[in-house]
């Protein structure tokens, strides 16, 4: 069969007005259903005719999925369909979670941030170009990882967390949400479940065809953020080839609770280096009780990259990760 790209094949469009309708439609259509949020991941797949669902469930009309609201516990809840621009420009987010606002503003371009949603940014599929080319790799149900061979062009791929598949998580907001101890609320016809952000993202060892716990029939409805650490320092950085419209080569998000010049608690998360945002637990433990200095950062960086393994073309990510973790300690403000 000859291949056609850049042309969306026909599908049936459903526009539910509420979450209940949406999940009912999703259940009804099962594997053949596709949830459309901002469309920035979706339409790439559709245009290339690689994903060809028969039914598209557009969440554009589900108002209850939009908006940022204060929670009872001093935290906030962000609807999954809230645009990245809204997140980045929200006074609440900027004051309570500047880390998230900073991360959101690094996504792609202003147009994409206007259109793209926080939920979509979190659950988006990997950008591994072998997979995105429609090649029958593990992630596409096949029996091979084209990116992990000794001849593959894998500059953008994994240095940790690989299991047959070496694709990385492309989200910019995901590491920030993990660092903020966010919770993801997932709805389906069987009710609502809540996941800690760290558990929400999964690796190919667990399921090689998914990047999150979301399964057909599941809808990410809300991102809950606990009350912010008072007086916390944060750091976010995204390294990329271009300053706009580019996915990260690696990104780092940190939250440091510093009292008396000493780190009391820390969250260190790196994305773009593994199939999921990697919480650097050992490095977090190691920096507790130390000053947020260059030396502490260096030590944390070294710990963070322990056990990492480079592919043919991405050894630089080891140094980059180490340095980003260092900066996330040293330069957190």
């Amino acid at each position, binding site marked *: *069969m*000859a*291949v*056609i*790209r*850049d*042309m969306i*094949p*026909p599908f049936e469009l459903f526009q539910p007005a509420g979450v209940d309708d949406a999940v009912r439609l999703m259940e009804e259509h099962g594997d053949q259903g596709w949830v459309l949020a901002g469309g920035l991941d979706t339409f790439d797949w559709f245009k*290339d*005719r690689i994903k060809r669902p028969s039914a598209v469930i557009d969440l554009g009309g589900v108002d209850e999925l939009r908006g940022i609201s204060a929670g009872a516990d001093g935290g906030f809840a962000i609807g999954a369909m809230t645009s990245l621009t809204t997140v980045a420009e929200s006074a609440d987010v900027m004051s309570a979670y500047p880390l998230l606002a900073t991360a959101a503003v690094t996504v792609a*371009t202003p147009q994409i941030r206007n259109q793209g949603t926080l939920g979509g940014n979190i659950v988006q599929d990997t950008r591994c*170009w*072998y997979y995105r*080319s429609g090649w029958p790799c593990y992630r596409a149900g096949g029996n091979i990882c*084209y990116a992990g*061979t000794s*001849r*593959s*062009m894998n*500059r953008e791929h994994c240095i940790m967390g690989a299991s047959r598949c070496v694709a990385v998580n492309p989200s910019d907001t995901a590491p920030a949400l993990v660092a903020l101890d966010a919770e993801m609320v997932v709805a389906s016809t069987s009710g609502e479940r809540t996941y800690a952000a760290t558990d929400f993202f999964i690796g190919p060892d667990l399921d090689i065809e998914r990047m999150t716990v979301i399964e057909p029939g599941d809808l990410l409805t809300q991102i809950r953020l606990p009350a912010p650490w008072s007086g916390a320092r944060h750091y976010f*950085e995204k*390294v990329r*080839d*271009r*300053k*706009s*419209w*580019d*996915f990260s*080569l690696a990104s780092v998000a940190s939250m440091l609770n510093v009292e008396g010049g000493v780190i009391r608690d820390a969250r260190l998360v790196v994305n773009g280096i593994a199939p999921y945002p990697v919480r650097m637990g050992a490095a977090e433990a190691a920096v507790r009780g130390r000053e947020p200095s260059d030396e502490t950062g260096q030590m944390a960086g070294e710990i963070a990259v322990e056990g990492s393994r*480079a592919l043919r*073309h*991405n*050894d*630089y*990510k*080891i*140094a*980059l990760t180490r*340095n*980003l973790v*260092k*900066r996330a300690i040293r330069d957190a403000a």
Partner: protein
Amino acid sequence: MAENVIGTDISPPDLRAKITGRARYAEDFRAEGMVFAKLLLSPMPHARVRSVDTSAAEAMEGVLGILRASEMPVQAEGLGEGALTDEPLYEGEPILAVAAVDETIAAAAVEAIRVEFEQLPFVLDPLESLREGGPDARLDGNVGGRGEALTIKWPDSVFDEAGPDRLPMGEPAAEWAIGDVDAAFAEAEVIVEETIVHQSVTHHPMEPRSCMAYWQNGKLFLHGSTQSTERSRGSVARMAGVEADDVVFIGEYCGGGFGSKISGTPNMAIPAVMSRKIGRPVMLRITRYEENYIGRARAGFQGWAKIGLRSDGRMTALDLYLVQDGGPYGRASDFSTAGTVATAIYQPENMRFRGVPVYTNTPPRSAQRAPGGAQIVAMLEPLVDKAARELGVDRLEVRKINAPGHDGWLGENKAPFTSAYVREALDLGGELFNWEEKKQLSGQRNGSKVTGVGMGLSPFTAGSAGRDGLLVIRPDGKLHVHQGIGNLGTHSIADTARPAADVLDLSWDDVVIVWGDTSKHLPFSTVQAGSQTTHAHTRANHAAATAMVGLLQELAAQELGGSPSDYRVADGRVFRASNPAAGMDFAQAARRAMALGGKFSGEQFPEDLNDATKAAVAGLAGEGLIAAARDNYARAGAVFTWVATFAQVELDVETGEVEIVDLASTADCGTVMHPRSLAAQTNGGVFQGIGMAKSQRWVFDPKWGIPFTKRFYTARPPGILDVPRSPRFAAVNQPDPHTPVGAKGIGEPPVGAGEAAYACAVADAMGGLCLCRTPLTSDMILAELEGRPRPYGLLDTHV
């Protein structure tokens, strides 16, 4: 007196339509009964079609026809390329086309076609093809010759001697020399040599090469995206198998060409022939994905250079070897142009050039903005910096020492230049950028950031001559400048008309530019390539306007008495110099010309006009006062423009990222026609070069021969945030003495200048370490700084 329009900022006539979205590009046109075509592309980088089963597609409702390679008037023969082929030489080459009542059906029909391919050997890396027993991209050879493919294989010893990090240099396909390079190296004070890779990059114009065709009374009407309007007609006619007179080519706007759409594109044949076959207008919308394949690319080089400087900084020896990655068709001449352009930067006293253009199974190459020139500038300039450092000579100074003056020369035959204000441009640039102060910042560290400054000097060809101008003063009193040139987005469509206004001393408001449709009677023009247009068509329109002045004077003398020399032309009137009230305005002149006929209204015209112009004049005859003239102005020498770009960067040693904090460019491009547009063109070219140096990639999987950088976001041309907010520009603004207007082209030289300035500034930030590769991405820089394994081999290409 009308204000002189040359040298002022104007709004080109197409601007408003472009900004408001009213401009109609090829894809926006519709014709009665129009249907759509879709392409079936080769899935393999080299293959032969064994069988095609179209039965399922043909059975689909709405499918109107299937076009195969064998039905095309122009076949892939010799080194030439067809619009469709049964022996694809790259993944993505069109095999066949399907027409259907809508695109959805056409796409579904393509998907329903079963093609059986016989897989053939393929090669992506030229060096691999030069090895004994290495694969050849073509069945008839692996190296581009004149009109036919050659086979060149180097013995293993050549590769073994070179090792993995140095360019192997076996038998070249082309070679020339000036002086005695070996003797010069023996006497040089400083010698540096490097193996350098400049990657191929695709063009990525915003507008893909969509086209629509229909036939009416035996004439082909084709809407397409082209750089050159009048010159596209002939190539489209050839592709469609008809005479040029039977083609009407329409293309008012072009969303970028950069050398990839010089005079029509091969795919234009598809709707043309399909439309004739099925008797319906056919639209072929080219997608971004398809554009990546058929949209042309710049040839890449794996090169080696060795330069020798005398103690005073003069380049006494340059030895150059270029292995060209030339795609599968034709013979991209980038490598040979590169050798020639090198002489225009440094005027080396002794030089040897060797090169071998190798075929690869990657999409076809064509000119890309300074083809060969940009590459060689970007490759050599960091090397010159390195030599200057070793010698202890200032880097700007070493360029000035070696830059050509008016007595400079070009290429192995040492042709003269028409003018060369290169040192003036360098001095101006040094001032604009504040080189003396900025170079003190070199190597300064601020936190994790290190400052680097660098510059690049980039020459390129900038003008041709001998084209025709065609002007009509119509009864509305307006001067209609018929432009055969295309509107490729550079404003030259308007700017080259300015001399006509100035010669006629006419307000710019009274000038109407006629362009973009060959049925509008367009004169013979250059192709819009090689930065020829501004030079060539300011001359042609100057010639035509001068002829128009003569006709007006003659007409006035005939009507109002006296001799022609008694009359002056200004402000839309022709009048007695001694009595301005005695005269007539252009509207009256036009009406008189129509009444008088003969040479005044185009019934007669100069014999030296090109046939295309003669036909245009004949078509216009009787519609006003018509002046057509050939550019016969004397000219001796090669017309070249030089651009110098200066860059200040900050390199983050912890991430390898580079930020450009300051950018300044200057040009010797003759008389400034349009300051705003000139600055835009220069900065745009500089950005394009920076993109090649910094981020733009063309990555293929070596196992499958398939590219991944098929979208903007994966190919990574630079974005506006990747360059400084306010790049500066200044022009020397010295007229070229070999043209009445003084203007030289600007389109191409900035690319190499930007690319080189960036590469030199990054090398400077790294303490003079030249990584000698484009693009130089942050991963490579970081690996080098951290002493970690290099991401790629020094000769790796398509990475």
